[in-house]
């Protein structure tokens, strides 16, 4: 692999709080040096990235890749390709595959498939319970040994408080977080959108915010009881934000993520019964959206994670109540972060990149999220000023279920590197 120099870009490294124009020199897949007038080898390529941002590759701790089981919706290869096109160099795949990723062999399969795809790094998340049935703990040791970086029963909550307690305790042995999908199933039952004035008007059964908050409160209490690390997936309500803030003030090991759609959209988007606005947790109210934004600013919510959830087009082409939850998100996340958080002046660009790379690496204890000298060269180069129009037919995911189709977003990803390998180049992949 030839060494290369990224020349003249705005280099932002949230892990070292640096931000300025510089050159980045990559040798043998690692960051060799950053500075000016770097002496490069004769065989080195020089890439002019003037006017572009050079940053640690983005990391998404919550994606659904559908393989094995629903390869018509996504595969590890297409998901990993979609990731690098969105500027992500690493993604964590949720275990609600078919069969469930609840054993060593299943984790190994994902790792092997991702190596074959050779795009973004794919870190498997193992199941908390066998078959995600919420009864018996999966073998965390075996899962971690095969490459799992966390455990989750995502898709479902860990309903049993006893199982959640034991999972948090046992996960401490391996230093991994237990990522919980917080939903009180009895309260949410039958619901297909947020419970509020819009659900009343549309005659759709609502899911109250309390369904999420009750489980958030429980998980926080169990984190305190056990000293384990609970990671709260896709937070969507202002009440959840308040609970997390108090937990963090107490010094508990609680981390949280929010999805771009929850800081971009509200339940009004469901009007007209657009099934691409159906997700779980649902789009909430303006006050919730604002609370999520503030929580991303002040660090109450640690990371942005997409909850990338591909669905075949005809699965969404049906009655709202019957349509599956979720949207794809890998290729729109950066643009939404820029448009919704940076352009209004809420987050600085380095802060956005921190929530999308450095913090995810820290929370899930992954490599990456840094441009430190000697670190693997997982790098994204994007043009923050150029705008593009979302056209799902041009995306790399196998699925097209996004509510952002036709919208204009800032931030065009131009190059993505993993281990110094060029895994994405705008217009040539």
């Amino acid at each position, binding site marked *: 692999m030839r060494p290369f120099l990224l020349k003249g870009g705005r280099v932002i490294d949230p892990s070292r709080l640096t931000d300025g124009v510089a050159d980045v020199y990559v040798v043998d897949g690692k960051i060799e040096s950053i500075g000016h007038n770097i002496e490069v080898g004769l065989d080195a390529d020089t890439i002019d990235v003037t006017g572009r941002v050079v940053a640690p590759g983005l990391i998404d701790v919550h994606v659904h890749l559908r393989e094995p089981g629903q390869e018509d919706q996504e595969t590890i290869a297409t998901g990993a390709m979609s990731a690098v096109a969105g500027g992500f160099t690493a993604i964590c795949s949720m275990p609600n595959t078919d069969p469930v990723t609840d054993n060593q062999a299943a984790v190994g399969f994902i790792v092997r498939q991702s190596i074959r795809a050779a795009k973004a790094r794919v870190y498997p998340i193992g199941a908390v319970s066998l078959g995600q049935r919420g009864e018996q703990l999966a073998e965390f040791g075996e899962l971690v040994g095969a490459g799992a970086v966390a455990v989750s029963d995502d898709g479902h909550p860990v309903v049993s408080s006893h199982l959640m307690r034991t999972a948090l305790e046992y996960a401490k042995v391996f230093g991994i977080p237990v990522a919980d999908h917080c939903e009180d199933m009895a309260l949410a039952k039958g619901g297909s959108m947020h419970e509020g004035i819009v659900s009343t008007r*549309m005659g759709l*059964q609502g899911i109250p915010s309390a369904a999420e908050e009750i489980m958030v409160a429980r998980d926080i209490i169990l984190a305190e009881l056990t000293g384990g690390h609970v990671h709260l997936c896709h937070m969507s309500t202002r009440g959840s934000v308040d609970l997390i803030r108090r937990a963090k003030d107490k010094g508990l090991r609680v981390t949280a993520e929010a999805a771009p759609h929850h800081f971009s959209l509200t339940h009004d988007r469901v009007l007209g*019964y657009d099934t691409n606005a159906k997700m779980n947790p649902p789009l909430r109210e303006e006050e919730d959206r604002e609370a999520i934004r503030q929580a991303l600013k002040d660090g109450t919510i640690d990371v942005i994670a997409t909850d990338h959830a591909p669905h075949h087009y005809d699965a969404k082409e*049906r*009655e*709202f109540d019957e349509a599956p939850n979720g949207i794809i998100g890998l290729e729109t996340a950066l643009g939404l972060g820029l448009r919704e958080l940076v352009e209004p002046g809420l987050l600085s660009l380095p802060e956005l990149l921190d929530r999308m790379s450095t913090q995810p690496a820290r929370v899930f204890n992954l490599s990456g999220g840094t441009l430190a000298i000697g670190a693997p060269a997982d790098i994204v180069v994007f043009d923050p000023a150029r705008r593009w129009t979302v056209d799902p037919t041009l995306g790399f995911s196998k699925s097209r279920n996004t509510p952002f189709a036709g919208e204009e977003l800032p931030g065009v990803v131009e190059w993505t590197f993993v281990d110094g390998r060029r895994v994405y180049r705008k217009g040539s992949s």
Partner: protein
Amino acid sequence: MTSPLGKDLIGLESLTPEQIQLMLDTAEPFKEVSERSIKKVPALRGKTIVNLFFEPSTRTRISFEFAEKRLSADTVNVASTGSSVSKGETLVDTARNLEAMRIDMVVVRHSMSGAAQFLAERIRSNVVNAGDGKHEHPTQALLDLLTLRDRFGRLEGLKVAICGDVLHSRVARSNIWGLLKLGAQVGVCGPPTLLPRGIEALGVTVLPRIEDAIEWADALNILRLQLERMQGGFVPSLREYNRVFGVTSERLDRAPRDLVILHPGPMNRGVEIDSDVADGPHSVILPQVTNGVAVRMAVLYLLAGGSPDWAAPPAGEETR
């Protein structure tokens, strides 16, 4: 040929007061058609209408069918039993098939909110919502409005209390929009478990007890209590519901004025309404049924591009 209502009738929420008024006014001459010995006019001759009922309904289907036949349309009934609908054919496939058969109008009833709109967005035919989930049931609300207007001579300023399971009721939603748009005041009354949280934001008054509703209102529209609400944990028992929220003649006797009683049917006598109230002098439950046919004739006629100025031609033109 664009109708003053647009292509479809999905709900009253999106309509203007003038459009709602137009449907009510157009229903007036159609009332008279149903009083004739030969109850038929040629307004929709040559039009094909499919009554697509994904959810069982006797009353609404029969009412639409009478309306269609009295307008001389050709009709086909597709019910959810014994058709491809029950064999798992998707709504989108059903829509495509209807489109391929060049149907002029589709009257659709479906258990899921949004289904009528879903269909309307995918076919060129006019779509009439005959009830979609908990969303809207516009022709039911129109016949309620017409019945109230017949009784009071006006809707403006009228106080109408909608009583019962508002949470799960498409009839309630359509009535709320229609009444508010035509200047009536709307109260809702029922167990808090069956009232949507924050419904005041729609512009209605919440009346906590049935006695409050009876004291406040000029008319009560009493919703049917679905028996499955007990399994859902919304009400403990039918007996208790009747005792706390039932409209009984003892309660009505204490009303400051005679209340007009509406019910969209089918009734659970002895649950939400007592028989002596349902059959009593202030009940307009049977006029509602009569008006249902006239209102549906008006809706179909207008959507088909009929002139609002139309007056029923004399019988005889379409005798045989």
